[in-house]
């Protein structure tokens, strides 16, 4: 018997939502069980911060079609601001992280306004140059302590009672922040805003002729992406207890691109998978010096030539699912 209030979504959309929900459930359960598994929680926490960073990046390129080669500026800015706020101003962790994310938000507004103005092909170069500008500013600014970075950031108690120096507590806090960020990205993608964004990516002139102000949508996506990257950066400071120039260097921007590319551009779970793979790879190859760079370069080349959908993308394509 058909109900009067039947689901307005198409069968494909319903199945996609079911696949994505299953994926989310699997991911969450696995992550919840990590402290009981014997896997080094610090590694997973780091990976989760980068996973959020990559999800934020993927929002912009996978759905907005804009390749930002300077996303490190958001990770690093939030990192420095959060670290400074916590260590020098005595902010409790939740405020330090939010302040960091707010700083990234501000940076995203300014840089986005500048970067969106030129033809799309220049966007990657502009964001890279802006990020390099930020890098040099931080290199010279006294509050960052230059090459040394901000060390010994206190972990404190979040909301007054969550003791972040306890690895298990810290882990679940990081997981919580990651899941919130992940759901924000998911919600953005699957909203009317997200649909317009996707249509702009697919056929910008057509979207404009339909009356959508493409630049505004792209700018909004950029700001959201930068802010969430900042959230990841602020969080990371409490995991690593430091903020350094590495986080604002262009190699970091390249890493988040790599993570998203390996995992799958434009997939929901791709950035998460990609982040874990790249972080694991860096741990495993830590003794090999610059070979890590060479290997990452090879992966870039191989992915672009033969593996454009990424791991999650290929998996989803093979099983005809939406992930």
């Amino acid at each position: 018997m058909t109900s009067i209030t039947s689901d307005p979504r198409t069968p494909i959309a319903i199945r996609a939502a079911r696949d994505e929900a299953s994926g989310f459930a699997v991911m969450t359960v696995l992550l919840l069980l990590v402290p009981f598994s014997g896997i080094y929680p610090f590694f997973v926490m780091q990976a989760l911060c980068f996973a959020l960073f990559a999800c934020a990046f993927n929002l912009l390129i996978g759905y907005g079609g804009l390749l930002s080669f300077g996303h490190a500026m958001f990770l690093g800015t939030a990192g420095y601001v959060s670290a400074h706020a916590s260590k020098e101003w005595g902010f409790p962790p939740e405020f330090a992280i939010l302040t960091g994310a707010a700083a990234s938000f501000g940076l995203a507004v300014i840089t986005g306004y500048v970067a969106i103005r030129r033809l799309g092909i220049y966007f990657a170069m502009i964001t890279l140059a802006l990020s390099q500008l930020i890098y040099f500013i931080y290199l010279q600014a006294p509050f960052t302590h230059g090459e040394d970075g901000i060390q010994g950031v206190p972990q404190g108690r979040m909301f007054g009672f969550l003791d972040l120096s306890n690895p298990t507590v810290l882990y679940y806090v990081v997981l919580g922040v990651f899941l919130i960020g992940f759901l924000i990205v998911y919600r953005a993608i699957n909203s009317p805003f997200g649909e317009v964004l996707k249509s702009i990516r697919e056929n910008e002139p057509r979207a404009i002729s339909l009356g959508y102000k493409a630049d505004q949508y792209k700018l909004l996506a950029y700001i959201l992406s930068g802010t969430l990257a900042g959230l990841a950066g602020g969080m990371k400071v409490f995991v690593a207890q430091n903020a350094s120039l590495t986080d604002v260097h262009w190699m970091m921007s390249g890493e988040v691109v790599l993570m998203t590319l390996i995992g799958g551009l434009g997939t929901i779970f791709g950035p998460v998978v990609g982040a874990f793979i790249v972080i694991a790879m860096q741990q495993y190859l830590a003794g090999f010096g610059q070979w890590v760079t060479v290997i990452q370069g090879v992966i870039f080349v191989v992915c672009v030539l033969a593996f454009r959908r990424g791991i999650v993308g290929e998996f989803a394509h093979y099983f005809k699912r939406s992930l």
Partner: protein
Amino acid sequence: MNIQALSAQLLVGLINGSFYALLSLGLAVIFGMLNVINFAHGALYMMGAFCAYFLLNLFGIGYWPALIIAPIVVGLFGILMERSLLQWLTGLDHLYGLLLTFGVALILQGLFQNYFGSSGLPYAIPAELQGGVNLGFMFLPIYRGWVVIFSLVVCLLTWYLIERTQLGSYLRAATENPTLVRAFGINVPRMITLTFGFGVGLAALAGVLSAPINQVRPLMGADLIIVVFAVVVIGGMGSIMGSVITGFALGVIEGLTKYFYPEASNTVVFVFMVLVLLLKPTGLTGRAT
């Protein structure tokens, strides 16, 4: 106002400007024909410098032959890169070209870093260009003057080749409508490959010129390429002359900044880029690519 110090910085600025011009010229030519932003351009510049170093230290071949041999060798490497990697990207979003060449840059830099570390290898100024000339208001090292003049000549020759010869007309036409040019009987794929090799050769030439001044280091192209990107954003990729003028001009601006406000010298090009984007988003030469 210390004229000596100012002139010295202006000279450094002109030299940097020479490299900006040569590299942004190569980037623009490559982008026009292949629709690829060649992130590996900095690494290829580095390879040009290393090629000169190897020619000298392994084969006893000096600077003057290296000026010709290194661009050819690295240019051939570029052709290999285009044939084996880039040609599979025709028709795809240009983002993939950027990602692929970024990967190639990482591979090249990583490999050279593994074998040569991060410190610089020396390369001597050729005997004929050593010493300097006293101009009164400054002391001009001959080699540095040579770099600026030679770069200018190469840029002007390239401009002439592209804008005023029939070969250049083939290139300009193929940039605009490669399908039709091919339908006239011109082997466009081969032209694309050779153009890429030429752009790479220009980068390698800059590397050879740079070797005696900047030392030969694996990362010498990495930070440079980001500044060149900013130059390219400012000048646009649609005009040869625009790339050259913008390159030299930004070098001079950087030099001036180093004298008047040294703390800002490594960021002034980026700040200038922001200003141009805010005031004239279509770039200084105005022509949309």
